[in-house]
C-alpha cells in the first residue's frame, strides 16, 4: 500500500525552493519520489520548468516520464515531494492547468461525440448544473476548428483515427483556457498532418504567454519544437535550455551508451568526433 507521506520541508529545502526563480517558473518540483508496488518509478526528482516556454520531458521507456506528470497532478500518489505551479499549490492552481492524458489511456468506444468530449473541458466552469450557453458552444467549435476537427464535431469518437483522437484531446484542453498545458506523449502514433497542426497550436499558445510541458519521445524533433528540455531516468539527469542542454553527453547519461549512440549519430553528424 502506498502511503502519501507529507513532506516536511527543512529550512535548507525551503531555501533551495526559493532559489528557483519563482516569478519565471511555471512548474517547480522538489524531491518527488514515486513508487509502484515496491518498484521505484521516480527518485527524489527536482525540476523547474520556465514560464511561457515549451518544455520537453525526455527519457527512455520506463524512465518515469508519464509518472512524473501524474504525480505532479496528484493523479497517482507520491511518497514525497513538493509541487508549486505558478508559485501556488496544486489545489489553488487547478483552474490554470489543462492536462492531456495519453490517448491510449481511455476507452474510445465510450458513447460520446467529438463535441461531447470537448464540452467536458467546460466542467470546471459549468459545475453540476451550469447552463451550456451558445457562447460555450461557439467556444467548443472554435477549439475544434483550431485543431481542424470542426467538421467532425458530431462524429462518434470511436470512429476517429489516432491522430484525430489526439486532436480532440487537445481541443478539450484548449477550451479550458489554462495557463499551463501538460501533455503526455501528444505526438505518439499520430500522422504527420496531426503533428503539424498540433505543434502549430502549441507554438501559438506559447506566443500567447502560455506554458507548455510535453512528455516527448522523438529526439529528432526536440530542437525544432522545444526551448527547454528536462532529461529524466528515474532520477533527474539534466535540465535547461535546449541549445545548451540537449547534448550528446546528457543523451548518453539518460539513455545509456548503446541506446544513445544511434540517436546521437542521427542528431550530430560530428558525433563520432565527440565519442572518440
Amino acid at each position: 500500500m502506498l502511503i502519501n507521506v507529507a513532506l516536511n520541508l527543512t529550512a535548507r529545502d525551503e531555501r533551495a525552493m526559493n532559489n528557483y526563480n519563482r516569478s519565471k517558473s511555471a512548474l517547480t518540483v522538489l524531491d518527488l519520489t514515486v513508487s509502484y508496488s515496491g518498484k521505484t518509478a521516480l527518485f527524489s526528482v527536482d525540476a523547474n520548468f520556465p514560464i511561457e516556454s515549451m518544455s520537453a520531458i525526455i527519457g527512455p521507456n520506463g524512465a518515469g516520464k508519464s509518472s512524473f506528470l501524474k504525480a505532479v497532478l496528484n493523479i497517482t500518489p507520491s511518497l514525497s515531494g513538493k509541487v508549486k505551479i505558478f508559485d501556488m499549490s496544486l489545489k489553488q492552481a487547478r483552474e490554470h492547468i489543462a492536462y492531456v492524458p495519453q490517448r491510449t489511456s481511455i476507452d474510445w468506444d465510450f458513447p460520446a461525440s467529438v463535441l461531447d468530449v470537448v464540452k467536458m473541458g467546460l466542467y470546471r466552469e459549468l459545475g453540476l448544473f451550469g447552463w451550456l450557453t451558445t457562447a460555450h458552444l461557439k467556444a467548443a467549435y472554435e477549439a475544434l476548428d483550431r485543431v481542424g476537427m470542426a467538421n467532425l464535431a458530431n462524429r462518434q469518437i470511436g470512429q476517429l483515427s489516432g491522430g484525430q483522437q489526439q486532436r480532440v484531446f487537445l481541443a478539450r484542453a484548449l477550451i479550458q483556457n489554462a495557463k499551463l498545458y501538460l501533455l503526455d506523449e501528444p505526438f505518439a502514433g499520430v500522422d504527420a498532418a496531426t503533428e503539424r497542426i498540433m505543434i502549430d497550436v502549441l507554438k501559438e499558445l506559447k506566443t500567447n504567454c502560455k506554458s507548455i510541458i510535453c512528455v516527448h519521445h522523438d529526439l529528432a524533433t526536440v530542437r525544432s519544437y522545444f526551448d527547454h528540455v528536462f532529461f529524466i531516468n528515474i532520477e533527474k539527469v539534466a535540465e535547461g535550455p535546449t541549445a545548451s542542454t540537449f547534448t550528446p553527453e546528457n543523451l548518453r547519461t539518460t539513455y545509456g551508451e548503446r541506446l544513445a549512440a544511434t540517436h546521437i549519430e542521427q542528431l550530430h553528424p560530428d558525433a563520432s568526433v565527440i565519442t572518440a
Partner: protein
Amino acid sequence: MGVDFIQFSLTPILIGVLASVACALPGNFLILRQQALLGDAVSHVVFPGIVMGFLVSGTVSATPMVMGAISAAIIAVVCIEIIKRFGRIDPGAAMGITFSSLFASGVIALEQSDTTTVHLDVEHALMGNLESLIWYEANGWHSLIEPASLAQLPHELNRLALVCIIILVLLFIFWRPLKISTFDEYFARTTGLPTITISLCLTMISTISAVTAFDAVGCIIVIAMFICPPATARLITNRLYFQVWWSVGFASLSAVLGYILAGYGPLWLGVENSVSAAGMIATISGFILGLACLFGQYRARTNCS
C-alpha cells in the same frame, strides 16, 4: 383484464420492472467502467449475507437481511484483497473464488437451518418469488385509489420504487461528474473531481440496487439486468444520455414481456404449467441483446486502431 390482473399480475410486473430498472441504471456505468460483473458478484455475496441475517434474527424482515448482505459484501471485499495479495492470483480469479465459495457457504448454512416455516431456500435465492408478490387487498381497478388497499401493497414494491427514484435523482445531480470520470479518469482528477469517491458511490448504489432487487426477484434477474439492457442500449445509440434511457426501456420491456410469457406462454402452447417469471425475464433480456447484436445500428462501431 379485471380483478385477477390487479390482484395477481400488476404488482409482480411492476416489481419486475422496477427491479430491472434499478439494476440497469447503474449497469450502464459499470459496463463502461469495465466492472460489469459487479452485479454478478454482489448478488452472489448477498445470498450468504441474507441467510446469516435470517439465522441471527429469525425473521425474513428487511433490516437484518440488508445488514447481513452489507456485512457479507464487506467480508467479500476483504477476502478478495487477501487472496489477491497472498495467493498471487489475478483479481478476476480472486473474485470468482470468493463469490462462488461464499454463495456455496450460504447454501450449506441454509440447509443446516430450519427454514421450513419461511420462504427462504436456494431456489428462492436464484429465482426470487416474483409470482408470490401479489396484492391481496386489491379487488379491482378502484383499489389503485384506495388508501387502505394501497397501504397493503407488497413492501418490495415500495422499496424498489424508492431505490429507483433515488438512483434517478442522483443520476440527474451527478450526471456530468459521472460521465467525465467514467470516460477519462485522469482528466477528471485534474479538473478536481473526486474520482475515487465517485467510483465508491457508484459501487455502493449498485450494491443497494442489487440487494433490494435480489430480495424481491432473486439473483438471476439482477445478474441479467446489470448487463443485458445497457449492453443492448449501447448497440442502439452512440450517446450516453440516450443509452441510459434506452436501457430503462429495454429493462422494462424484458420484465413485462418476460412475466407475460412466463405466465401465459405455456398456456398458449397448450401446456398447463407456467414457467419461472424470473428465468423468463432474464432470458428475454438476453434474447433482446442477441437481436441487437444482429441488427443494432452501431454493432460494428469502431475501426479498431
